[in-house]
């Protein structure tokens, strides 16, 4: 199975939102190289505390405090340093700070649900947040999204751009979620599920989840750095 076949299709009828938004015509393939160009400078400021979603307000947010860490790698396992990682999520009650979110669950005045960081020299990122709640959506009868954190990654090149979602191990809502199930194979779906990380868990303070992210790109060319 090629890497492209592991990606979700544009049209996945079980996810109703794709039906009028998926392109109907085939994508146009360009010869190699046309999309191999470096990322321009990212103009958004990333401040020291932007990785800590629990310290953006006067008080602490309600919910289960968690640490989410991992590495951003190329397909040869090399770390991708200075990758921009942006996250956003629902609060512990399953509500987003968004005027279009009408789920009748409480907002948390101490939680906005967005953060940012840059990966370090080993490709590592680290966020402190609270575990997001599941929430209902209107895709089908009694549809609920499994708990997830949205991730946006901006690497050093155009082709490595990725927006995806991280899920939590053992969530019983995953098998019925058409967004996760749109990924054709089990191995691909499992790549989006974090792992409970007892080593990073801080005693008396916060559970940790670990999730590595592999980006595509020209850097994945084999033997590029071989002597």
């Amino acid at each position, binding site marked *: 199975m090629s890497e492209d076949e592991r990606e*979700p299709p544009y049209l996945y009828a079980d996810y109703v939102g794709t039906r*009028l*938004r998926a392109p109907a015509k085939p994508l*146009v393939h360009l010869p190699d190289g*046309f999309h191999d160009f470096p990322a321009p400078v990212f103009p958004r400021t990333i401040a020291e505390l932007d990785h800590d979603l629990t310290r953006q307000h006067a008080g602490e947010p309600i919910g289960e405090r968690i640490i989410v860490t991992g590495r951003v790698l190329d397909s040869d396992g090399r770390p991708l340093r200075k990758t921009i990682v942006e996250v956003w999520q629902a609060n512990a009650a399953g509500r987003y700070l968004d005027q*279009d979110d009408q789920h009748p669950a409480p907002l948390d005045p101490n939680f906005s649900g967005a953060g940012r960081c840059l990966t370090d020299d080993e490709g590592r990122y680290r966020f402190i947040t609270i575990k997001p709640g599941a929430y209902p959506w209107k895709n089908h009868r009694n549809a609920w999204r499994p708990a997830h954190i*949205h991730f946006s990654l901006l690497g050093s090149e155009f082709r490595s751009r990725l927006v995806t979602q991280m899920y939590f191990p053992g969530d019983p809502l995953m098998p019925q979620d058409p967004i996760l199930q749109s990924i054709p194979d089990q191995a691909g779906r499992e790549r989006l599920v974090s792992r409970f990380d007892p080593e990073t868990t801080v005693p008396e303070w916060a559970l940790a989840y670990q999730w590595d992210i592999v980006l595509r790109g020209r850097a994945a060319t084999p033997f590029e750095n071989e002597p």
Partner: protein
Amino acid sequence: MTPSQTVGPFFGVGLPFEKGEQIVAPGTAGAIRVEGQVLDGKGEPVPDALIEIWQIGSGFGRARTDAEGAFSFTTAKPGGTPAPDGRTQAPHLNVTVFARGLLRHLVTRMYFPDKAEANAADPVLNLVEPARRETLIAKNCGGVLHFDVRLQGERETVFFAI
């Protein structure tokens, strides 16, 4: 590779940022304004899309659509860029589209209406069937460049595999 997932409808808290639509400041000499609308397969506006522009040499832009599916950017007009095969590509903007209902982002290009000669020789436009090329060329509406993104259906925008 880590598979893609949709940006969903609630990215507003996380991705748009102040002045993200200003790749160059308005009023800068030579600045151009790009306006457009994202439309679905029924021609309805897509109010929860995010557009990014990656412009070699100038910068990065990001803007969400509003309730009418409309977005806008201010940027500098690009020059021609070398193609991997040594030819010259006509000036263009690299445009990516994210939205609820898009499990992967889409990639397209915006070319310029006053560059007919360069567009006719452009190696990428020449890979597109002639009847669909016009979906990639902005229209000049009183000095503003208008570029709509039709996700599906009649006059569907050409999108590129990445």
